């Protein structure tokens, strides 16, 4: 176990921990704008994970699309729907304790299933770089690629029509 690998794994686990903390904060904090900022931190943390899992192109995509575009959308929505300087209204249901019951149940089942099954992991092949991704997109997945662009177009027009002020 050379130092390099030791450093990389500790960094990986540290990143995982950081993401969990940021996500937990994002979900519980009262001020909506703070939760949006913590969401941005979780997204960047996840992009770091992708770097560790040798999916560089996806990491760059994640930062570019998620943090660059979707976060801007969310922040604009937060700004438009909350009056500037309004008192922090309680963000969650009064009896939010009840939610923990189903969550605990689902969690227990899920994690116990994961830990029991014997995952025979084969050695990771060569890293996937943008060139192979591009070739796959254009040859094997060309149909879903076109359909997704159509879906995006429909979503774009839909969003404009709904949000347009008369």
């Amino acid at each position, binding site marked *: 176990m050379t130092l390099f690998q030791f450093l990389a794994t500790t960094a990986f686990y540290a990143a995982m921990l950081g993401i969990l903390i940021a996500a937990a904060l994002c979900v519980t904090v009262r001020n909506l704008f703070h939760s949006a900022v913590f969401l941005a931190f979780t997204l960047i943390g996840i992009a770091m994970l992708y770097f560790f899992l040798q999916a560089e192109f996806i990491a760059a995509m994640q930062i570019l699309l998620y943090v660059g575009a979707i976060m801007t959308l969310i922040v604009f929505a937060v700004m*438009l729907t909350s*009056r*500037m300087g309004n008192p922090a209204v309680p963000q969650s249901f009064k009896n939010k304790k009840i939610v923990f019951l189903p969550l605990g149940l689902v969690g227990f089942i899920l994690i116990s299933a994961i830990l029991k099954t014997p995952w025979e992991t084969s050695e990771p092949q060569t890293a996937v770089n943008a060139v192979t991704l591009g070739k796959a997109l254009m040859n094997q997945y060309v149909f879903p690629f076109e359909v997704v662009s159509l879906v995006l177009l429909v979503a774009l027009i839909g969003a404009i029509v709904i949000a347009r*002020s*008369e």
Partner: protein
Amino acid sequence: MNCPYLQNMDQQSTLDTQRLEVSLGPQHPSTHGVFQMDVVLDGEQVIRLKPVMGYLHRNHEKLMENMSWLACMPYTDRLDYFCALANNFSYALAVEKLAGIEVPERAQYLRVIMAELTRLINHIVLVGFLLNDLGAFFTPVLYAFREREKLLDLFEDVTGSRMMCNYFRFGGVKRDVPPDFILRVREIVNQFPKFLDELEELLTHNEILLSRCQNVGILPKALAVNAGITGPVLRASGIPYDIRKIDKYSIYGRFKFRVPVGEAGDVYDRYYVRILEMRESLQILEQAINEIPDGEVISKAGAQAAKMPRTLKVPKGDAYGRTEAPKGELGFYLVSDGSGKPYRYHVRAPSFINLTVLEDMCIGQKVADVIIILGSIDIVLGEVDR
């Protein structure tokens, strides 16, 4: 920001963006002095604008009521502190009309030369600051200041002080000009058009300036006339009203010069009409230098009044003297009860009256345009608040 005037606003009906009540000023970087505008914004669009003035009120008119006629003269420099000599000119005219003092030929020519040089200073400084509001990082202002320094040095030699000149006396001017005065004015007049061409090359056909200034802050002809607007703002809206041509006061009748007139009445017209006016002033200066006679600079009665101000007898009655100051029609309404002190002293300040149409021009424009519309009206707070 609780702007009292806007408190009774009805809550906005549809949400596009929250209505922002912003108060631009009194210490805002581009309101040319202490001037506040309470603006209601819908996003970037201006819905309502209320100018708030009076921060620089110095009780000018009441103060003059216990000053002798001559002692009022240095205070007129402080009205529109950019063009002190233009203020002196109309105050001197008003008192001379009241007291019936004649002005010798040479003094008339000196007065016209001084007034036109002040017009040059005022217009180039305005063009500079208008561009500064637009965002050009001080470059046009510093070119304008480079030229203005030459003129201010000339004023210092002639009148004694760069901006607070106090040079006019009833019946002429305070003292004769230094011998090389005509030479220096000729040199300025020859070199100024070159500077104007360079400034125009930098600005007039600049696409960003064109798109930012055209069709912005339009002042329709009818509104301009009804609101009593005067000066370049009125001429930019298409009405050729210039007091130098109408009253032909002092000796303006002898000079041949044209009056530029815009047609759209937007910020670009107000900017360009002032550049053309500068070129006309240069024509006047040209003719004035060639025809200036020699002779005494102040009439006998004037000199005696300047030496012993007590002896100046101003008969009972009232008079209204007005001149074409660089910002518009600057008028002095003086009432005298024969006691050596003005009984009533009122200043018709062009900037104050031009300011009344600010809201009409700004409704519907964007925040960035409000600043340049204010800049294009060319107000100086010393004159607005008096």
